[in-house]
């Protein structure tokens, strides 16, 4: 146990890095994904096309490739992110937004069409009817799929370890290399840290789902 105590500061910092990667990327992806979903149901064909292009690009590209492109590819067009951490947040956000978009869009499609018709009939424009009537109902139905997207994101943060961010997976590699005799302990500690994020999330998502359910 003294092994864990010795390395506690390292593990704690790595845990906080993983958690902030997930939370920041999750927030950006939620906003971007919702905007994309609104574009995909918009009456303007150009917006629909743009959002569809985005989703198909990022949903069908391996996350590691997205990381690679943002870390090294954009240097060729004279661009660079201020830090490796921000590069990782950008890659995770852009990638996850595509999945958020599709989850939210399925929620929009699940709202009975009469709701949007009634909203238009009292004079709300497209944006108002989406933001006050359709999206609030859509979000309630997509808590479970968004929860899955979130948990996938929390685990996907581990790709950042390959791009010089000291997250839980990077620490797993480092400690395992340096302490071959403590391998089991290292794995247990790191997996427990991931589970702390994902299982707590699953529990909170369950509560949120029950709290937000709409009676029809």
């Amino acid at each position, binding site marked *: 146990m003294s092994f864990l105590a010795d390395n506690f500061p390292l593990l704690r910092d790595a845990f906080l890095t993983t958690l902030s990667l997930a939370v920041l990327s999750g927030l950006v992806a939620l906003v971007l994904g919702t905007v994309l979903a609104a574009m995909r149901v918009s009456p303007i064909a150009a917006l629909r096309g743009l959002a569809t292009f985005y989703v198909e690009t990022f949903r069908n590209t391996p996350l590691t490739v997205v990381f690679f492109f943002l870390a090294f590819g954009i240097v060729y067009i004279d661009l660079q992110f201020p830090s490796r951490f921000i590069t990782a947040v950008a890659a995770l956000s852009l990638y996850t937004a595509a999945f958020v978009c599709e989850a939210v869009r399925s929620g929009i499609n699940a709202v009975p069409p009469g*709701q949007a*018709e009634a909203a238009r*009939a*009292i*004079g709300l*424009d497209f944006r108002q009817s989406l933001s006050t009537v359709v999206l609030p*109902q859509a979000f309630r139905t997509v808590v479970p799929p968004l929860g899955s997207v979130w948990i996938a994101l929390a685990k996907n943060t581990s790709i950042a370890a390959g791009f010089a961010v000291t997250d839980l997976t990077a620490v797993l590699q480092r400690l395992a290399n340096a302490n071959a005799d403590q391998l089991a302990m290292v794995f247990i500690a790191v997996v427990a840290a991931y589970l702390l994020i994902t299982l707590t999330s699953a529990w909170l998502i369950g509560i949120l789902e029950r709290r937000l359910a*709409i009676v029809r």
Partner: protein
Amino acid sequence: MTERPTGEPLVRLTGVNKWFGQLHVLQDIDLTIDRGEVVVVIGPSGSGKSTLCRTINRLESIENGEITIDGQRLPEEGKELARLRADVGMVFQSFNLFAHKTVLENVTLGPIKVRKQSKADAEKRARELLDRVGVGHQADKVPAQLSGGQQQRVAIARALAMDPKVMLFDEPTSALDPEMINEVLDVMTSLARDGMTMIVVTHEMGFARRAANRVVFMDGGRIVESATPEEFFTNPTSDRAKDFLSKILNH
């Protein structure tokens, strides 16, 4: 109601045509509704009467022809269309109350978001309207806690809150249990008495006799007959209307 109001046109459809794919659902529709007039549209299912109703606030687009409301041509889309829809109240067969909002919020949403009224003003008016349609004490419930008849009366209050120039009713009682139909028809009858301009698609012949100035009979996407309720029910001129009435009035 016998005498015919005003004679001043409010809603005018001229040469309106609409297709659903191959199906020609509205064929050369000409119809003028005067301010204060109550027009009941009847006809067999598939005759195009609901579609006709829905074109008037452009929930359905039309392929050709012209629709004007209060002299203004229906805009194709965007903010102008939204503004015009605010002046046209609509009541749906399936109520379509906003499921995530309370009864009171359902009624105040339009006045606050579209008419830019203050929340206090909108709520005061909403409570008056809810009282008027007899569901004032349900204001803080959500729609699913109300019966169908109560929900439809809330929907009428929601439309009235916008102070519309004309009210459209698209089969407002067709989704209701029989014992709830009258509570909705009573509200509609009192609206008609108060001089509201109304276009009502319905199968309720009693309402047509009692409250309508004019009955429009549709079949196969066309207006086949247009007459006072008295004339229409006692002496229909077209064979199609005679056939229709014989089927529904014999019970």
